[in-house]
């Protein structure tokens, strides 16, 4: 992964907007009802919960990109397995970036060269994905367990339908030509599928949702712009030396569409990152026909990491001890209240 992309990832993905301060939801928000805190065992050395996914609220896969580990845990936070590709593929270059459950609970890991690895639903080592598979920033699966990946590559970002092993079947998807560098540099935007294999896509530069049918034809564009949403107006430079200079200037006070998550079987959650001095994450809830469901705008200090069955999951990092020891982060499960 390019160094600049890592830095930009950090800027957006870090939960620590305020220097040195732990970011935590200390009080229940009017849109949230705390269901439980999932504490991770102190026996594990977890640098951070960089990415996570949930499977039927029964299992969670946690990626710690700092410690280069992936953990499969149950709903109580007990470790089921530390995923290890060397069990079936000794010498595999393990640099996990993100993880996704498919419909059957099998786990797909996006890795940094080689790009993909597959584990079973209990962490059984299956093996690398096809040699032709490339890392996607977002993943979803259809009812046939085919993979659909969101690729922010230059010069042509694309959505890609692949076999369960990661072989390309076809490309599709709408991407704006005016913001290709922004799309490329940020790991924002994403895709989900519903139970009828419709695909829903968002891109970083606008709040619009693009809907594709099961033949991957664009059938609808849902437009809803929150009041705080300020579109990016110009693209950043393609030159690595100028990107850092551009990022602050172009993104100042703007809103980025961070991702799209299936909140439950008939509701979509779209998450935005607001880059103003009052930084927050805004979310909007829609039904599958693009009708907005939340009466009021919803804003959080922390990003939603995952969602399922009406629950949203946040990561909480408590402050270090006086000796500088950082406790393991925990996962907070909340019921999302939006009506």
């Amino acid at each position, binding site marked *: 992964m390019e160094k600049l992309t*890592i*830095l930009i990832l*950090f800027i957006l993905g*870090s939960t*620590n907007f305020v*220097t040195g301060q732990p970011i935590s939801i200390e009080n229940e928000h009017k849109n949230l009802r705390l269901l439980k805190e999932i504490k991770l065992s102190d026996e594990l*050395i977890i*640098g951070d919960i960089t990415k996570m996914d949930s499977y039927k609220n029964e299992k969670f896969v946690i990626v710690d990109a700092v410690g280069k580990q992936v953990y499969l845990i149950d709903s109580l936070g007990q470790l089921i397995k530390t995923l290890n590709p060397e069990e079936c593929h000794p010498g595999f270059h393990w640099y996990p970036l993100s993880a996704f459950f498919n419909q059957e609970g099998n786990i797909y890991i996006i890795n940094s060269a080689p790009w993909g690895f597959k584990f079973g639903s209990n962490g059984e080592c299956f093996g690398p994905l096809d040699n032709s598979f490339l890392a996607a920033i977002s993943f979803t699966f259809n009812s046939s367990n085919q993979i659909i990946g969101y690729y922010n590559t230059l010069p042509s970002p694309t959505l890609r339908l692949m076999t369960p092993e990661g072989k390309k079947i076809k490309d599709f998807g709408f991407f704006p030509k005016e913001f290709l560098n922004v799309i490329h540099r940020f790991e924002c935007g994403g895709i989900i599928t519903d139970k009828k294999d419709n695909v829903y896509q968002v891109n970083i530069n606008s709040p619009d949702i693009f809907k594709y049918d099961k033949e991957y034809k664009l059938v609808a564009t849902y437009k809803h712009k929150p009041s705080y949403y300020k579109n990016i107006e110009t693209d950043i430079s393609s030159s690595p030396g100028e990107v850092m200079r551009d990022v602050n200037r172009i993104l100042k006070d703007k809103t980025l569409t961070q991702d799209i998550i299936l909140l439950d079987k008939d509701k979509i959650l779209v998450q935005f990152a607001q880059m103003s001095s009052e930084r927050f994450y805004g979310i909007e809830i829609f039904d599958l026909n693009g009708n907005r469901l939340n009466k009021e705008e919803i804003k959080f200090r922390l990003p939603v990491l995952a969602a399922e069955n009406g629950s949203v999951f946040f990561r909480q990092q408590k402050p*270090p001890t006086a000796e*500088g020891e950082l406790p393991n982060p925990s996962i907070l499960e909340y019921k999302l209240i939006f009506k």
Partner: protein
Amino acid sequence: MFNKNHKFFKFGFWALIIIVVTLINLFLNFEKSKNNSVNHIKNLDLKSIRLQTLMDSKIPLGKNFPNFSAYNIVSDKKEFKKFDELSLVLLLADYGCNRCQNRELKNCQKLFESNDELNVVCVMNTIDRYSALRLRKVTQVKFPMFVQDSSFFRNFSYSRNYPQLLLIHHNKINDTFLPIPEDDDFSEWFFEYVSVKIKDSLYFN
């Protein structure tokens, strides 16, 4: 007649076997030499990269490395650090080679544990203390780690690549090293070199 045919086929059978085995051997040798030449090219690339790194590492030699103030990630307070004694300084950045940074932190920790005379310090190019705390946690290092913003690094960082290692004595940069991603051996050699230099007491003049 039968005997002649039988001899002919028997001879033909063995000739066929020999030809097939020969062809298989030729094919395997061809593949092996192709692999060897690919490895040869890879080795040449690695040597070039190492050579370039070593050349780049010469740039700051002899330059002054100032005493400085930076935020200690444990105490979260600004501390003043002096570099008149022998010191190994590891410079990190959020956008640096992630795997390299973990590796060099662990290498520095080994040196820190085995050398009382060596002052080991890490400074990370970030205002986010938690980034450094996370690295400290997963690598289990015990030497002091600091964070400072990027303007601080312009004083003595000599490359856009991170991590960077600087061996300082009497506030002068005596040695430097730019680790290479995926090249663990190269890093090991640098740390062996530093260990030998400390043991030889070349610095204790």
